[in-house]
């Protein structure tokens, strides 16, 4: 059997790796942002300018869920657990958790190898 055990080599590789990882991650950051190119001619230049101005007046990132199609439901209320369905859900959840915990203790097979 042939085994390669050049420990110094391993250390070198690990060191080189560390340097490489450190070097690698910032590299793509060196790539430029989306290039700023002149806007193609449009027929609504004036409207655009208004739009750009209006948009600039708004925060770039907001968390206002104006369309709450996915973001809300009857269960979205902070007081959900005070409602009847919320209480029932909690009760079912509690019963399910309780029995699963009981099972985890009582149905567990304990190998003699772990004793």
């Amino acid at each position, binding site marked *: *059997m*042939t*085994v*390669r*055990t050049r420990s110094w080599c*391993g250390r070198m*590789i690990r060191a080189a*790796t560390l340097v*490489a990882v450190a*070097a*690698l*991650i910032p590299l*793509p*950051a060196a*790539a430029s942002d*989306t290039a*700023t*190119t*002149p*806007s193609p*001619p*449009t027929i*609504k230049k004036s*409207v655009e300018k*208004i*739009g*750009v101005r*209006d*948009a600039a007046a708004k*925060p770039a*990132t*907001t*968390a*206002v*869920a*104006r*369309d709450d*199609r*996915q*973001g809300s*439901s*009857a*269960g*979205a209320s902070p007081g*959900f657990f005070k409602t009847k*369905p*919320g209480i029932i*859900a909690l009760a*079912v*959840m509690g019963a*399910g958790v309780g029995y*699963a*915990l009981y*099972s*985890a203790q009582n*149905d567990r*097979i304990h*190998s003699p*190898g*772990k004793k």
Partner: protein
Amino acid sequence: MNIRSMARTIFLCLIVCAAWVPLAAAQTQTGTVEGKVIDQQGAVLPGVNVTLTGPRGSQTTVSDADGTFRFVGVAPATYTLKAELTGFLSESQPDVVVSLGKTVTAEFALRVGGVTETVEVTAASTVDVKSSATHTNISNEMLQLTPIYSSTSTGLLNYAPGINNSSAYGAQASYGNALLMDGVDTRDPQGGSAWTFFNQNLIEEIQVGGLGAPAEYGGFTGGIINTVTKSGGNAFTGLFSIRYTNDSLASNNISESMLDENPALGEAAVTKKLADYTVQMGGPLKKDKAFFFASIQRYEATTDPTGPIATSQDISPRFNTKFTLQPSSNDTLVLGMQYDSYNVTGRQGYPGSKSTDQQTVTEDAPEWVWNAQWRKVMGTSTFLEAKFTGYTGYYYLDPVDPSPFTYDALTDEYTGGGGGLEYEDRSRNQVQASLTRYADAFGRHALKFGAEIERSHVGTQYEPYGPAGFYIYAYGGVPYYRISYGYTFHGDNKRFTAYAQDQWSAGRLTMNLGLRLDRIRGYSPDLKKTVYTPDLAWGPRIGVAYDLTGKGSSVLRSFYGRYYEGTATQFWISATPGIEDYVQTPLNPNGSVAGPPEVVTPGFMYGISDDIGHPRTDEFNVAWENQLTRTGRLTVTGIWRKTGDFINNVINGSQWRPVTLTNSLTNTTYTGYNWANRSTTDQDFFIRNVEGYQYVDTAGNVIGTADPRRNYKALMILFDSAFRRRIGYQLSYVLAKAEGNVDNTGFGNWLGGVQWGSPNTALINSFGELTNSRRHEMKFNVEYNIPKVDVMLGGVYTALSGRPFTPLQRYTTSQLNLPLNSRKEIFLEPRGSQRNDFFHNLDVRAEKLFRVQNHRFGVYADMANLFNTGTVTTRQGRVPNTTISGHTVLYKAPTGVQTARQITFGGRWSF
């Protein structure tokens, strides 16, 4: 940035990756939404507010000077996309489905009008015209509405086209697939099979890939199953589900003629009792900022498997929690944890399918799985992902009857005890990081760079003959030997991966270029040495995608790539200490000891080559994907795969003497080989890439040369439509062939076995169609909601060519001069010359729904194998016969039959 500096950046990155000999992958857990805003005259509109609203709030960006916008790092879910600009009617696109690693392209054409009005328009295209990868999604709807159930990744894989018996696109079934759950590699680091079990109700989405996979994916030669689990959102959600069945709801599909051929079939495998419930809830801890999700399952299944075992039981409680934190709109932190314990009684012991209840083992198998992820979006052009994932667990098998068993070589029967003792410990830790950067230079680039480190541990203690450490070898009822054997191994996999990829789009054309480098090492804690040192694995990925219409609805793709297997101690563990002597002690006919023990095969370490290549697969595919309906797409894919650098053991210096053997199938003779110098070379097993190894006779003349191969070609046609309004479906047909001389079933068929150690198994009739070669495959899954009565119907239909098999004959130790414990079967016909029956199966579900506000209640019945067909799935391949449970079973007699009809009832409440 000009193209030169761009090219230099990419080149430098690749060089750095290469120089630093690596391993790893940071598989994407998110997707991208991008698009363009124009007006009705087609002019671009900058400055448009574009909002993406999903289950965990909204994010907004502004279209740039080109009218384009992009959301990166978007978690898979269904979103609403909305564009707003003063002076224009707002437009909204609902049902924007974001999938793993996919780019959804959307376009808005705003009309002049009041901003307070909103127009709903058709959702974005379902076709990713930039990717070179071909995926199949198993949606949450499909999992919930059809009678699909599996608690392992590999089980779910089989619902995708081109994948059967866990063999994906012709690859090895037990370890060829990457099994990822929320980015956690859930494979056993010993052999690569599924290690962790999960609750299917946890799944948000499954993506099955592996065709045209980008460089971020590695560690597979078959398929990739990328599973995303549910998370909490701004709305409280819950699921309370229960399933139940018992043996009174089961049918029997074993015919009298089958029983005549093989009485050991007895009755069909029956689920005597299944009681499975899940309770889960998710919701906000703080709106838009912090969310929780918790799921608890208790799974109990008692079965009567085919064969002598009467009862097998599995009880598994499973606990999952996940916290999702969004400290800012650009940061997402995910912390997940799973604990489960797998408690089994009635598992097969050493005699395998011949085990009786007395020869079974119990299994104690708890595990912890963890997952910490941080995703950071920097502006609209940069996205960082970092993960720490892993698991630790064990399974310990103990025999119910610790007394030694007796094996009768004449009848091939086992009596007495027989449950082996096996203690397996595992752990796996992985750290991954990746950076995605969008940039412009001669087109648009989506650059991704990543690195990954894996450390996984295997501990194995195996006493196959039970705690006594030995069994009795008898012939015709007369004891001859007491035989003892066992082993204890420890091994660590060490992997470092780096990759770089670029999705470079110019007009309608997109180039997907990538390179993945894996540095894999196998370390022996016992030797304190690295014993497995394969060459650096270079995995290039070159793909092209062309948007045929320019509207994002049709794409032509082509791809070449090289994939490498994941880590597995099985490749090299025999090159570490731990194998005990194989000892036989002669016995008198009355069972008393007749003489001193004799070491038949000393425990020794195999040698291992230091010039070895990790197994790999080259893939070339061409695909056309076309959107046919709003949610439906047609995909046609041609696939060619070739696997190489197979690792196995040969016997250095072995010489083989030709002997005349009888083929009992044809009653003719042929030339086999007897190990002529076994006494001097029986410790010279050597692990290497076996290609080119020459088998020689006693005069040194070459008998033949090892030429291991596994090739796959297929034409795959898929038409799928996501569930919308009342119907969703997926229809596929695959014409395929997998052939070679390295089978694609379990690990042991080619690794750790002696296939390439002996010319009998390496050269004689070894080439042909492989076990998992399904010439024709059709799969149809459908979900349909009957209006007015509000009943959901779900169906899964599968039609498959039977699996090939090969007649074989077992010869004696003296004929071949092989050790007692080695394989002495030789194929009598070319591999895969016979084929099992064509297989049909239909499973259906009918569910009556009751809706109260946003609460949905359902009661359902699943009917597995609705028509109770009894297709023979496996046949006895040994010529002329073998003995199973005391019955003589002839060649070609059935040994496995399709699972009989079983009805399962279920109910659930979700909101």
